[in-house]
């Protein structure tokens, strides 16, 4: 529960945040650092490996850096007239537009489920919640078949549209709405004559914003990382996102190892945007899957 946690952190300094008087624990710190090293290892490797020419990649210890990073980037940029950068833009488009629409749709549904009582509410929520448990990837093939019937496969729409619905986003939005919007405020807005839509747009939405940013980010990452849906839907490599494009490059690398340098450089460039997004928006990266269960 982003909002609640953030607000409380601001007022009540927790024991863990106080300057510690106890001596630091060597064992605890060491275990944490081992974990951090394990998680950083492949990332450090790709940074160094991307700096090597393809001859060096196979002949030298890959933890020794070299000077060919910009040559490699230039070479990757010329690969089929900058196809790689087109994949990057496609990925940004799928993830950015898809996640924004998803956050809005989830916010509306979550607000309705949290702040209204109406007949069928429990059933609607349960059906949507069941959607969380539906193995999303299994949907990709029938989605392909259905979109094929309306001629939408192998278009931007075929990846974008199925990405907008996020049962998990709705579930989170409901929790955020329930926690962040007091009933009295909704009532007050109504008493003051605001319509339902206006109450939502001008009163509820601003209060839900931190939660919506979190929903946006999680959906953004989910779409950015998605592989199977675009892999199935798209045939034209000019529509590919990075994941599908790089996986195809790796396939070619199996027969011509010179491609490996391009794959490694592409892998490095493709994680830069998300890592940047992470570091910039750190405070939104907290999520309580079972929120509501631990409060009270």
């Amino acid at each position: 529960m982003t909002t609640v946690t953030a607000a409380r952190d601001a007022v009540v300094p927790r024991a863990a945040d106080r300057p510690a008087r106890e001596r630091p624990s060597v064992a605890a710190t060491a275990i944490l650092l081992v974990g951090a090293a394990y998680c950083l290892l492949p990332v450090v490797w790709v940074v160094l490996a991307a700096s090597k020419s393809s001859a060096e990649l196979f002949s030298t210890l890959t933890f020794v850096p070299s000077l060919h990073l910009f040559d490699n980037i230039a070479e990757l940029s010329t690969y089929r007239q900058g196809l790689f950068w087109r994949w990057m833009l496609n990925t940004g488009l799928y993830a950015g537009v898809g996640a924004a629409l998803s956050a809005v749709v989830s916010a509306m549904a979550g607000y309705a489920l949290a702040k209204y009582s109406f007949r069928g509410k429990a059933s609607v929520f349960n059906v949507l919640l069941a959607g969380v448990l539906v193995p999303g990837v299994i949907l990709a093939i029938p989605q392909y078949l259905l979109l094929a019937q309306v001629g939408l496969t192998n278009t931007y729409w075929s990846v974008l549209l199925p990405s907008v619905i996020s049962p998990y986003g709705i579930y989170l939005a409901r929790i955020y709405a329930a926690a962040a919007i007091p009933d009295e405020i909704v009532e007050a807005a109504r008493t003051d004559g605001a319509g339902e839509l206006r109450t939502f747009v001008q009163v509820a939405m601003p209060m839900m914003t931190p939660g919506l940013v979190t929903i946006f980010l999680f959906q953004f990452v989910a779409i950015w990382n998605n592989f199977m849906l675009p892999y199935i839907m798209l045939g034209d490599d000019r529509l590919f996102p990075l994941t599908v494009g790089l996986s195809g490059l790796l396939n070619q690398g199996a027969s011509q190892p010179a491609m490996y340098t391009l794959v490694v450089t592409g892998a490095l460039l493709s994680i830069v945007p998300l890592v940047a997004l992470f570091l910039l928006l750190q405070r939104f990266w907290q999520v309580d899957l079972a929120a509501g269960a631990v409060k009270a």
Partner: protein
Amino acid sequence: MTEPITQDAPDRRAAAARRPASAHVLELPPSTEARRRGGRLLGRHAAPWAFLAPAIVLFALFLAAPIGYSVYLSFRTEKVSGLGLGPGSRQEVWNGVANYVSAVADAEFLASVGRVALYGLLVVPVMLGSALLFALLLDARRTRARRFGRIAIFLPYAVPAVISSLLWGFLYLPGVSPFYWVFERLGWSVPSLFSSHLVMFAVANIAIWGGIGFNMVVIYTSLRSIPSELYEAAELDGASQVGIAWRIKIPIVLPSIIMTFVFSMIATLQVFAEPTTLRPLSNSISTTWTPLMKVYRDAFTRGDLYSAAATSVIIAVATFVLSFGFLRLVQSRAFGQEER
């Protein structure tokens, strides 16, 4: 639009915009005119449905319809008459449960289920155990470098499964891997992780690497919401940090752990991207290495949509039974308390 926006005088709106959102609402002008009108386009009874409409429509189109269509296809098959060349020689007909019968009897499918079960037994406990451990370490006062640790361990979440498979794939590949470079200098002969015995661990490691951070943050978020008074008393009584973690913190965050378990289980059953990406690097990964890879192969390489549909329905039902069964088992702790 339900509300003529113009009834809000421009200066009021500007003033409202300068105020924080929560104060704003109290300043809305009482619009008696609107109340007199009574009926609005979006009445109080229609409103929730209007807000739910986009979600319901999208849910129907991209979740419910595909599921329904899969189920339908799974009971159908294609009948070929003659040489199957002329128009009308291929016909879709009902096939009863025959697709299901052949799916569950399929040796490749059973082998892939066995692999996924083993893979899940490897991935889920190791991943969630590490996530819990790191979350507790981040929450412990005496740990140093917590900020760095949190960012570093969460970082893999920013790396798509395809890219992380690619990175680890190179780290496993004897020609490129720095580890094998060192092993070689030391004169050790270390078997390739891509050999058929070890490839399971190679794939599992990628999933564990990618999943620890997210689950750690989920558990850490819920650890942070424990009021510290709850364990300060125990501290005064001389309880150790490990004791506090076991007896106080873990029981309180159990609902979060349960949810991460369910989501991890679902993700495990769907494993597809990692082995598919590793395939060009390893001969040990067949096209039917996981159930979903088999579905993909049946549908797109063989063009047999009907048995692919039956197999995917089986996977979906199994996922449902497992996750709902598990939630039922622990229900009172995870869901339902929100309603109070």
